[in-house]
């Protein structure tokens, strides 16, 4: 009986040491996770909203120009309203934090819609669209890949009710063990 008792208490003691270390490690890891996540989130948020803000400023200023020129009833102003309306629906917080998974919000689709509406507006105004950086172009390629993947996934029956639960800007949990790259953040 004594031997049994000793073994058990030894196991518990090991567990206690482990737990103590784990707790301390966890709070330290949390600090690092917050810091690294914050740095990435800042960059990503800036990148996306610099582009969207450009479109917004572009559209609003053109509206002012059209009003000044007395052309506010032209087709271009309709395009402006469309564009501004789509931008106003674009989330300013990462939806994975604020919305439940059931929310019907397709960020890549919305972004594509905004970009194409911007281009349509440009051509109706007869101006050249803003040059896209290589990064944005690469992102568009990636989005096309994502779209294809999504379409494939939709066809698989296992998706079921999770169909709308596409994580947006979700940091891949497995990816965090490796150095985090933008590849871990899905659009």
């Amino acid at each position: 009986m004594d031997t049994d008792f000793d073994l058990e208490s030894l196991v518990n003691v090991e567990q206690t040491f482990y737990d103590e270390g784990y707790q301390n490690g966890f709070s330290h890891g949390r600090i690092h996770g917050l810091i690294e996540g914050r740095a990435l989130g800042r960059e990503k948020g800036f990148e996306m909203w610099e582009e969207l803000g450009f479109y917004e400023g572009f559209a609003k200023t053109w509206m002012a120009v059209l009003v000044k020129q007395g052309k506010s009833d032209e087709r271009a102003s309709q395009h402006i309203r469309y564009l501004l309306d789509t931008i106003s629906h674009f989330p300013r917080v990462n939806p994975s934090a604020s919305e439940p998974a059931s929310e019907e919000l397709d960020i890549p689709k919305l972004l594509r819609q905004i970009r194409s509406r911007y281009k349509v507006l440009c051509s109706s105004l007869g101006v050249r669209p803003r040059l896209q950086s290589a990064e944005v172009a690469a992102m568009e390629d990636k989005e096309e890949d994502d779209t294809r993947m999504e379409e494939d996934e939709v066809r698989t029956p296992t998706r079921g009710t999770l169909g709308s639960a596409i994580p947006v800007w979700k940091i891949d949990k497995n990816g965090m063990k490796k150095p985090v790259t933008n590849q871990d953040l899905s659009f």
Partner: protein
Amino acid sequence: MDSPWDENPENSTHNDIEWSRISSEFTNVGYREGITAGKEAASQEGFDAGFANVGVPIGRELGLLRGTSSVVLAFLKSSADIDEKAQMLTEAQEISSQLSRVRFSDIMPRDIEAEEHAREHLEAEGIELDMNEVIADKREVEGLEDMLANLSAYNGKSKEKHARPTIDDVQCLKDRLRLLTNRLDLGIAWS
């Protein structure tokens, strides 16, 4: 007594050493696994906070200014009969080109908590914390750009060294742009 150790008092030091070895081993394993778990658990929270509180508002502000200034510039170029057009055109070009130079790293606020934690590590272990790879790459490219810009500035016999713009510069550009749109009577609702 019940315990076998009591009969061998000379073993107690050995036992203490063994004991502390085991304890620190388990504590260390726990610590390592705790770090990984804590990091994973918190990184999304950090991402969301940095995204919504810093990246989005600053990006949007700069984007709005750039979008507005590009239209003002185009408008001035295409309009024929405006008073003081040449002077305003120069101003619009100046604002536009200065806005295009601004980088996120020029105007983002410091992350005090991150700086403090990095300092703690530096003091405790003498090592600097690694920056995220993607961000580190971006900063490196920016550094090269600065170097080239300064190099070509010297070659052009210009004494002026290209200083990075600051948040105050951006605020100043915003004021100048607002002045310009007011002069042009473009009623823009500034956010």
